[in-house]
Protein backbone atom coordinates (compact mmCIF):
# COMPACT_ATOMS: atom_id res chain seq x y z
CA UNK A 1 0.00 0.00 0.00
CA UNK A 2 1.98 2.90 -1.28
CA UNK A 3 0.63 6.07 -2.74
CA UNK A 4 2.29 7.26 -5.90
CA UNK A 5 1.65 9.20 -9.07
CA UNK A 6 -1.13 6.78 -9.97
CA UNK A 7 -3.25 8.76 -7.53
CA UNK A 8 -3.02 11.87 -9.64
CA UNK A 9 -3.37 10.00 -12.90
CA UNK A 10 -6.52 8.28 -11.63
CA UNK A 11 -7.93 11.57 -10.39
CA UNK A 12 -7.39 13.07 -13.83
CA UNK A 13 -9.03 10.06 -15.45
CA UNK A 14 -11.93 10.42 -13.05
CA UNK A 15 -12.29 14.09 -13.88
CA UNK A 16 -12.34 13.31 -17.59
CA UNK A 17 -15.03 10.68 -17.15
CA UNK A 18 -17.10 13.01 -14.99
CA UNK A 19 -16.80 15.70 -17.64
CA UNK A 20 -17.87 13.29 -20.37
CA UNK A 21 -20.90 12.17 -18.40
CA UNK A 22 -21.91 15.70 -17.43
CA UNK A 23 -21.43 17.01 -20.95
CA UNK A 24 -22.37 14.25 -23.34
CA UNK A 25 -24.52 11.71 -21.54
CA UNK A 26 -26.73 13.03 -18.81
CA UNK A 27 -28.48 15.92 -20.59
CA UNK A 28 -29.35 13.86 -23.67
CA UNK A 29 -30.67 10.91 -21.76
CA UNK A 30 -32.61 13.18 -19.46
CA UNK A 31 -34.10 15.02 -22.42
CA UNK A 32 -35.21 11.76 -23.99
CA UNK A 33 -36.74 10.58 -20.74
CA UNK A 34 -38.49 13.85 -20.04
CA UNK A 35 -39.80 14.16 -23.58
CA UNK A 36 -41.22 10.67 -23.30
CA UNK A 37 -42.74 11.44 -19.93
CA UNK A 38 -44.40 14.47 -21.44
CA UNK A 39 -45.62 12.46 -24.43
CA UNK A 40 -47.07 9.85 -22.12
CA UNK A 41 -48.69 12.47 -19.92
CA UNK A 42 -50.18 14.16 -22.99
CA UNK A 43 -51.40 10.84 -24.31
CA UNK A 44 -53.02 10.01 -21.01
CA UNK A 45 -54.67 13.42 -20.92
CA UNK A 46 -55.91 12.95 -24.48
CA UNK A 47 -57.26 9.52 -23.60
CA UNK A 48 -59.03 11.00 -20.61
CA UNK A 49 -60.45 13.73 -22.82
CA UNK A 50 -61.60 11.15 -25.36
CA UNK A 51 -63.20 9.08 -22.63
CA UNK A 52 -65.06 12.12 -21.37
CA UNK A 53 -66.19 13.05 -24.89
CA UNK A 54 -67.38 9.51 -25.48
CA UNK A 55 -69.31 9.59 -22.23
CA UNK A 56 -70.89 12.88 -23.19
CA UNK A 57 -71.87 11.73 -26.66
CA UNK A 58 -73.23 8.48 -25.28
CA UNK A 59 -75.37 10.45 -22.93
CA UNK A 60 -76.49 12.69 -25.78
CA UNK A 61 -77.31 9.71 -27.95
CA UNK A 62 -79.25 8.14 -25.10
CA UNK A 63 -81.21 11.33 -24.70
CA UNK A 64 -81.92 11.54 -28.43
CA UNK A 65 -83.10 7.93 -28.46
CA UNK A 66 -85.31 8.53 -25.46
CA UNK A 67 -86.76 11.63 -27.07
CA UNK A 68 -87.37 9.83 -30.35
CA UNK A 69 -89.01 6.97 -28.52
CA UNK A 70 -91.27 9.38 -26.64
CA UNK A 71 -92.09 11.15 -29.87
CA UNK A 72 -92.91 7.89 -31.59
CA UNK A 73 -95.14 6.89 -28.72
CA UNK A 74 -96.86 10.24 -28.92
CA UNK A 75 -97.37 9.91 -32.67
CA UNK A 76 -98.71 6.41 -32.19
CA UNK A 77 -101.11 7.58 -29.55
CA UNK A 78 -102.22 10.43 -31.76
CA UNK A 79 -102.76 8.09 -34.65
CA UNK A 80 -104.75 5.73 -32.51
CA UNK A 81 -106.85 8.57 -31.26
CA UNK A 82 -107.30 9.83 -34.77
CA UNK A 83 -108.29 6.44 -36.07
CA UNK A 84 -110.77 6.01 -33.25
CA UNK A 85 -112.09 9.43 -34.09
CA UNK A 86 -112.39 8.59 -37.77
CA UNK A 87 -114.16 5.36 -36.95
CA UNK A 88 -116.47 7.17 -34.62
CA UNK A 89 -117.13 9.84 -37.23
CA UNK A 90 -117.81 7.22 -39.84
CA UNK A 91 -120.15 5.44 -37.53
CA UNK A 92 -121.89 8.69 -36.81
CA UNK A 93 -122.12 9.55 -40.48
CA UNK A 94 -123.40 6.10 -41.29
CA UNK A 95 -125.95 6.34 -38.55
CA UNK A 96 -127.09 9.72 -39.75
CA UNK A 97 -127.17 8.58 -43.32
CA UNK A 98 -129.18 5.51 -42.33
CA UNK A 99 -131.59 7.67 -40.35
CA UNK A 100 -132.00 9.99 -43.24
CA UNK A 101 -132.57 7.23 -45.67
CA UNK A 102 -135.01 5.62 -43.29
CA UNK A 103 -136.84 8.90 -42.96
CA UNK A 104 -136.87 9.36 -46.72
CA UNK A 105 -138.19 5.83 -47.19
CA UNK A 106 -140.80 6.44 -44.55
CA UNK A 107 -141.80 9.68 -46.21
CA UNK A 108 -141.95 7.98 -49.56
CA UNK A 109 -144.00 5.19 -48.13
CA UNK A 110 -146.32 7.70 -46.54
CA UNK A 111 -146.51 9.58 -49.79
CA UNK A 112 -147.29 6.37 -51.60
CA UNK A 113 -149.90 5.50 -49.03
CA UNK A 114 -151.41 8.97 -49.35
CA UNK A 115 -151.32 8.72 -53.08
CA UNK A 116 -152.86 5.31 -53.01
CA UNK A 117 -155.54 6.51 -50.65
CA UNK A 118 -156.14 9.51 -52.86
CA UNK A 119 -156.31 7.32 -55.86
CA UNK A 120 -158.50 4.89 -54.01
CA UNK A 121 -160.74 7.73 -52.99
CA UNK A 122 -160.87 8.97 -56.55
CA UNK A 123 -161.63 5.48 -57.75
CA UNK A 124 -164.27 4.94 -55.11
CA UNK A 125 -165.73 8.33 -55.93
CA UNK A 126 -165.70 7.64 -59.59
CA UNK A 127 -167.08 4.17 -58.87
CA UNK A 128 -169.77 5.72 -56.76
CA UNK A 129 -170.46 8.29 -59.41
CA UNK A 130 -170.49 5.58 -62.04
CA UNK A 131 -172.80 3.57 -59.85
CA UNK A 132 -174.99 6.55 -59.28
CA UNK A 133 -174.82 7.31 -62.94
CA UNK A 134 -175.91 3.87 -63.72
CA UNK A 135 -178.74 4.24 -61.33
CA UNK A 136 -179.69 7.70 -62.27
CA UNK A 137 -178.46 7.63 -65.83
CA UNK A 138 -180.18 10.65 -67.04
CA UNK A 139 -181.15 12.37 -63.98
CA UNK A 140 -177.81 13.14 -62.70
CA UNK A 141 -175.99 15.76 -64.50
CA UNK A 142 -172.37 15.50 -63.49
CA UNK A 143 -171.88 19.11 -64.01
CA UNK A 144 -175.01 20.17 -62.16
CA UNK A 145 -174.37 17.98 -59.17
CA UNK A 146 -170.67 18.61 -58.91
CA UNK A 147 -171.10 20.07 -55.47
CA UNK A 148 -172.98 17.11 -54.24
CA UNK A 149 -170.48 14.73 -55.71
CA UNK A 150 -167.68 16.62 -54.20
CA UNK A 151 -169.21 16.44 -50.76
CA UNK A 152 -169.76 12.74 -51.12
CA UNK A 153 -166.18 12.31 -52.26
CA UNK A 154 -165.01 14.14 -49.21
CA UNK A 155 -166.96 11.93 -46.90
CA UNK A 156 -165.36 8.85 -48.31
Amino acid at each position, binding site marked *: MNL*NLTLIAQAVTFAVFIWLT*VKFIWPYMLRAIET*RQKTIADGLAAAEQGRRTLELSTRQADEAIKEARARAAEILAQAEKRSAQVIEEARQTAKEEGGRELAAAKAEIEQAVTRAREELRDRVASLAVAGAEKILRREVDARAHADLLESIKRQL
Partner: protein
Amino acid sequence: MAAGSELTPSQYIEHHLAFFTKPIGDGPFWTLNVDSLIVSILLGIIGVGFIWWVVRGATSGVPNRRQAFVEVLIEFVDNQAKGVFQHGDRHRFIAPLALTVGLWVLLMNAMDFLPADIVGLLTHHVSEHGFRYVPTADVNTTFALSISVLVLSIYFAIAVKGFGGWLHELFFAPFGTHPLLIPANFLFQMVEYISKTLSHSLRLFGNMYAGEILFLLLWMLAATGMAGAIAGSVLALGWAIFHVLIVLLQAYIFMMLTIVYISMAHEHH
Protein backbone atom coordinates in the same frame (compact mmCIF):
# COMPACT_ATOMS: atom_id res chain seq x y z
CA MET B 1 -1.37 -21.34 -12.26
CA ALA B 2 1.52 -20.51 -14.48
CA ALA B 3 4.47 -21.23 -12.25
CA GLY B 4 2.49 -22.07 -9.10
CA SER B 5 4.19 -25.34 -8.28
CA GLU B 6 7.54 -23.66 -7.83
CA LEU B 7 6.22 -20.89 -5.63
CA THR B 8 5.70 -21.01 -1.89
CA PRO B 9 2.29 -19.74 -0.72
CA SER B 10 3.65 -16.39 0.37
CA GLN B 11 5.52 -16.00 -2.90
CA TYR B 12 2.30 -16.81 -4.78
CA ILE B 13 0.38 -14.18 -2.90
CA GLU B 14 3.17 -11.65 -3.24
CA HIS B 15 3.37 -12.37 -6.91
CA HIS B 16 -0.32 -11.70 -7.36
CA LEU B 17 -0.28 -8.60 -5.23
CA ALA B 18 2.60 -6.97 -7.07
CA PHE B 19 1.74 -3.99 -9.21
CA PHE B 20 2.95 -3.48 -12.71
CA THR B 21 4.82 -0.26 -12.00
CA LYS B 22 6.68 2.08 -14.21
CA PRO B 23 9.01 4.63 -12.59
CA ILE B 24 8.93 7.95 -14.36
CA GLY B 25 11.07 9.99 -11.99
CA ASP B 26 13.14 9.89 -8.85
CA GLY B 27 11.71 8.82 -5.54
CA PRO B 28 9.03 6.29 -4.66
CA PHE B 29 6.18 8.69 -5.46
CA TRP B 30 7.10 9.12 -9.10
CA THR B 31 5.92 5.75 -10.29
CA LEU B 32 2.78 4.77 -12.11
CA ASN B 33 0.75 1.65 -11.45
CA VAL B 34 0.26 0.95 -15.12
CA ASP B 35 -2.07 -2.01 -14.47
CA SER B 36 -4.57 -0.02 -12.39
CA LEU B 37 -4.46 2.83 -14.85
CA ILE B 38 -4.93 0.72 -17.96
CA VAL B 39 -7.72 -1.37 -16.49
CA SER B 40 -9.56 1.57 -14.96
CA ILE B 41 -9.32 3.66 -18.12
CA LEU B 42 -10.48 0.74 -20.22
CA LEU B 43 -13.41 0.08 -17.91
CA GLY B 44 -14.30 3.75 -17.83
CA ILE B 45 -14.26 3.85 -21.59
CA ILE B 46 -16.37 0.71 -21.77
CA GLY B 47 -18.89 1.94 -19.20
CA VAL B 48 -19.14 5.57 -20.21
CA GLY B 49 -18.75 4.63 -23.88
CA PHE B 50 -21.57 2.12 -23.68
CA ILE B 51 -23.90 4.66 -22.13
CA TRP B 52 -22.79 7.31 -24.58
CA TRP B 53 -23.41 4.93 -27.46
CA VAL B 54 -26.93 4.19 -26.18
CA VAL B 55 -27.67 7.84 -25.42
CA ARG B 56 -26.51 8.92 -28.85
CA GLY B 57 -29.24 6.74 -30.40
CA ALA B 58 -31.75 7.44 -27.65
CA THR B 59 -35.30 8.03 -28.70
CA SER B 60 -38.02 9.70 -26.75
CA GLY B 61 -40.43 7.24 -28.32
CA VAL B 62 -40.58 3.57 -27.42
CA PRO B 63 -37.11 2.60 -26.16
CA ASN B 64 -35.46 -0.65 -27.07
CA ARG B 65 -34.14 -2.95 -24.37
CA ARG B 66 -30.68 -1.45 -24.42
CA GLN B 67 -32.00 2.04 -23.94
CA ALA B 68 -34.48 0.88 -21.32
CA PHE B 69 -31.60 -0.66 -19.37
CA VAL B 70 -29.59 2.55 -19.47
CA GLU B 71 -32.68 4.57 -18.57
CA VAL B 72 -33.32 2.36 -15.57
CA LEU B 73 -29.73 2.91 -14.51
CA ILE B 74 -29.98 6.65 -14.97
CA GLU B 75 -33.31 6.92 -13.22
CA PHE B 76 -32.01 4.86 -10.33
CA VAL B 77 -29.05 7.20 -9.90
CA ASP B 78 -31.28 10.22 -10.39
CA ASN B 79 -33.67 9.02 -7.69
CA GLN B 80 -30.80 8.53 -5.27
CA ALA B 81 -29.51 12.01 -6.05
CA LYS B 82 -32.99 13.47 -5.74
CA GLY B 83 -33.44 11.92 -2.31
CA VAL B 84 -30.28 13.45 -0.89
CA PHE B 85 -29.48 16.55 -2.88
CA GLN B 86 -32.02 19.34 -2.44
CA HIS B 87 -29.85 22.36 -2.95
CA GLY B 88 -30.42 23.19 -6.59
CA ASP B 89 -30.36 21.60 -9.99
CA ARG B 90 -29.01 18.11 -9.50
CA HIS B 91 -28.93 17.50 -13.26
CA ARG B 92 -26.19 20.03 -13.74
CA PHE B 93 -23.47 18.14 -11.92
CA ILE B 94 -24.19 15.91 -8.98
CA ALA B 95 -26.41 13.34 -10.67
CA PRO B 96 -24.09 12.73 -13.63
CA LEU B 97 -21.18 12.64 -11.20
CA ALA B 98 -22.98 9.98 -9.20
CA LEU B 99 -23.62 7.98 -12.35
CA THR B 100 -19.97 8.15 -13.32
CA VAL B 101 -18.75 7.13 -9.89
CA GLY B 102 -21.28 4.38 -9.42
CA LEU B 103 -20.80 2.83 -12.82
CA TRP B 104 -17.04 3.10 -12.87
CA VAL B 105 -16.57 1.71 -9.36
CA LEU B 106 -19.01 -1.07 -10.09
CA LEU B 107 -17.10 -2.13 -13.19
CA MET B 108 -13.75 -1.89 -11.42
CA ASN B 109 -15.07 -3.94 -8.50
CA ALA B 110 -16.52 -6.51 -10.85
CA MET B 111 -13.03 -7.25 -12.18
CA ASP B 112 -12.60 -9.26 -8.99
CA PHE B 113 -14.69 -12.05 -10.49
CA LEU B 114 -12.11 -12.82 -13.14
CA PRO B 115 -10.02 -15.85 -12.21
CA ALA B 116 -6.62 -14.55 -11.13
CA ASP B 117 -4.41 -17.19 -12.67
CA ILE B 118 -6.15 -17.34 -16.04
CA VAL B 119 -5.92 -13.57 -16.38
CA GLY B 120 -2.34 -14.01 -15.22
CA LEU B 121 -1.60 -16.19 -18.25
CA LEU B 122 -2.50 -13.26 -20.47
CA THR B 123 -0.98 -10.47 -18.43
CA HIS B 124 2.32 -12.27 -18.16
CA HIS B 125 2.86 -11.26 -21.75
CA VAL B 126 2.63 -7.65 -20.62
CA SER B 127 4.28 -7.81 -17.25
CA GLU B 128 6.20 -10.73 -15.77
CA HIS B 129 6.31 -9.23 -12.31
CA GLY B 130 2.63 -8.84 -11.66
CA PHE B 131 -0.52 -7.30 -12.95
CA ARG B 132 -3.27 -6.18 -10.59
CA TYR B 133 -6.45 -6.01 -12.60
CA VAL B 134 -8.82 -4.86 -9.82
CA PRO B 135 -8.22 -1.11 -9.80
CA THR B 136 -10.33 -0.54 -6.68
CA ALA B 137 -8.04 -2.91 -4.77
CA ASP B 138 -5.36 -0.28 -5.33
CA VAL B 139 -5.33 2.52 -2.74
CA ASN B 140 -4.21 4.93 -5.41
CA THR B 141 -7.49 4.49 -7.26
CA THR B 142 -9.72 4.74 -4.22
CA PHE B 143 -7.83 7.71 -2.86
CA ALA B 144 -7.92 9.37 -6.24
CA LEU B 145 -11.69 9.04 -6.16
CA SER B 146 -12.18 10.14 -2.57
CA ILE B 147 -9.74 13.05 -2.84
CA SER B 148 -11.49 14.17 -6.01
CA VAL B 149 -14.73 14.11 -4.06
CA LEU B 150 -13.05 16.08 -1.27
CA VAL B 151 -11.83 18.67 -3.75
CA LEU B 152 -15.27 18.87 -5.30
CA SER B 153 -16.96 19.28 -1.92
CA ILE B 154 -14.56 22.08 -0.99
CA TYR B 155 -15.15 23.66 -4.39
CA PHE B 156 -18.93 23.53 -3.96
CA ALA B 157 -18.71 24.76 -0.37
CA ILE B 158 -16.81 27.82 -1.61
CA ALA B 159 -19.04 28.23 -4.66
CA VAL B 160 -22.20 28.17 -2.56
CA LYS B 161 -21.12 30.10 0.54
CA GLY B 162 -18.31 32.18 -0.91
CA PHE B 163 -14.73 31.90 0.23
CA GLY B 164 -15.46 34.00 3.32
CA GLY B 165 -18.45 31.90 4.19
CA TRP B 166 -16.42 28.76 3.89
CA LEU B 167 -13.63 30.15 6.07
CA HIS B 168 -16.19 31.34 8.57
CA GLU B 169 -17.63 27.87 8.73
CA LEU B 170 -14.18 26.39 9.04
CA PHE B 171 -13.44 28.42 12.18
CA PHE B 172 -16.84 29.12 13.75
CA ALA B 173 -18.78 25.90 13.22
CA PRO B 174 -19.95 23.59 14.68
CA PHE B 175 -19.33 24.69 18.29
CA GLY B 176 -19.98 28.42 18.12
CA THR B 177 -18.49 31.79 17.29
CA HIS B 178 -16.69 32.39 20.59
CA PRO B 179 -13.03 33.21 19.81
CA LEU B 180 -11.83 30.59 22.27
CA LEU B 181 -13.65 27.95 20.31
CA ILE B 182 -11.82 28.69 17.08
CA PRO B 183 -9.15 26.00 17.51
CA ALA B 184 -11.72 23.41 18.52
CA ASN B 185 -13.88 24.29 15.52
CA PHE B 186 -10.97 24.16 13.14
CA LEU B 187 -9.74 20.87 14.56
CA PHE B 188 -13.20 19.41 14.29
CA GLN B 189 -13.60 20.53 10.68
CA MET B 190 -10.20 19.12 9.75
CA VAL B 191 -10.99 15.79 11.41
CA GLU B 192 -14.28 15.73 9.58
CA TYR B 193 -12.73 16.37 6.17
CA ILE B 194 -9.90 13.89 6.71
CA SER B 195 -12.01 11.15 8.20
CA LYS B 196 -14.61 11.49 5.47
CA THR B 197 -11.99 11.13 2.80
CA LEU B 198 -10.15 8.30 4.53
CA SER B 199 -13.24 6.27 5.31
CA HIS B 200 -14.63 6.91 1.85
CA SER B 201 -11.62 5.45 0.11
CA LEU B 202 -10.49 2.84 2.62
CA ARG B 203 -13.93 1.26 2.92
CA LEU B 204 -13.92 0.49 -0.77
CA PHE B 205 -10.26 -0.46 -0.86
CA GLY B 206 -10.55 -2.74 2.17
CA ASN B 207 -13.52 -4.62 0.82
CA MET B 208 -12.05 -5.18 -2.60
CA TYR B 209 -8.59 -6.01 -1.31
CA ALA B 210 -10.04 -8.52 1.13
CA GLY B 211 -12.05 -10.10 -1.65
CA GLU B 212 -9.01 -10.40 -3.81
CA ILE B 213 -6.93 -11.95 -1.00
CA LEU B 214 -9.66 -14.43 -0.18
CA PHE B 215 -9.81 -15.56 -3.79
CA LEU B 216 -6.03 -15.96 -3.80
CA LEU B 217 -6.17 -18.07 -0.64
CA LEU B 218 -8.81 -20.28 -2.20
CA TRP B 219 -6.75 -20.66 -5.36
CA MET B 220 -3.86 -21.71 -3.14
CA LEU B 221 -6.07 -24.35 -1.61
CA ALA B 222 -6.99 -25.43 -5.10
CA ALA B 223 -3.30 -25.97 -5.89
CA THR B 224 -2.87 -28.61 -3.18
CA GLY B 225 -4.37 -31.49 -5.14
CA MET B 226 -7.60 -32.92 -6.48
CA ALA B 227 -9.54 -32.65 -3.21
CA GLY B 228 -8.17 -29.17 -2.71
CA ALA B 229 -9.16 -28.18 -6.22
CA ILE B 230 -12.74 -29.32 -5.68
CA ALA B 231 -12.98 -27.71 -2.25
CA GLY B 232 -11.34 -24.54 -3.53
CA SER B 233 -13.70 -24.34 -6.50
CA VAL B 234 -16.80 -24.86 -4.37
CA LEU B 235 -15.66 -22.33 -1.78
CA ALA B 236 -14.60 -19.86 -4.45
CA LEU B 237 -18.01 -20.19 -6.07
CA GLY B 238 -19.65 -19.47 -2.74
CA TRP B 239 -17.39 -16.51 -2.15
CA ALA B 240 -17.96 -15.20 -5.67
CA ILE B 241 -21.72 -15.32 -5.16
CA PHE B 242 -21.35 -13.50 -1.87
CA HIS B 243 -18.89 -11.14 -3.47
CA VAL B 244 -21.51 -10.08 -6.03
CA LEU B 245 -23.29 -8.46 -3.12
CA ILE B 246 -20.13 -6.77 -1.90
CA VAL B 247 -19.26 -5.50 -5.36
CA LEU B 248 -22.71 -4.00 -5.86
CA LEU B 249 -23.02 -2.75 -2.31
CA GLN B 250 -19.62 -1.08 -2.23
CA ALA B 251 -20.23 0.63 -5.57
CA TYR B 252 -23.61 1.81 -4.29
CA ILE B 253 -22.17 3.00 -0.97
CA PHE B 254 -19.37 4.83 -2.73
CA MET B 255 -21.84 6.54 -5.03
CA MET B 256 -24.21 7.44 -2.19
CA LEU B 257 -21.41 8.83 -0.04
CA THR B 258 -20.23 10.93 -2.96
CA ILE B 259 -23.71 12.42 -3.26
CA VAL B 260 -23.97 12.90 0.50
CA TYR B 261 -20.58 14.59 0.89
CA ILE B 262 -21.22 16.98 -1.96
CA SER B 263 -24.73 17.70 -0.67
CA MET B 264 -23.28 18.43 2.76
CA ALA B 265 -20.92 20.94 1.17
CA HIS B 266 -23.98 22.85 -0.03
CA GLU B 267 -25.47 23.11 3.46
CA HIS B 268 -25.14 26.21 5.58
CA HIS B 269 -24.33 25.75 9.23
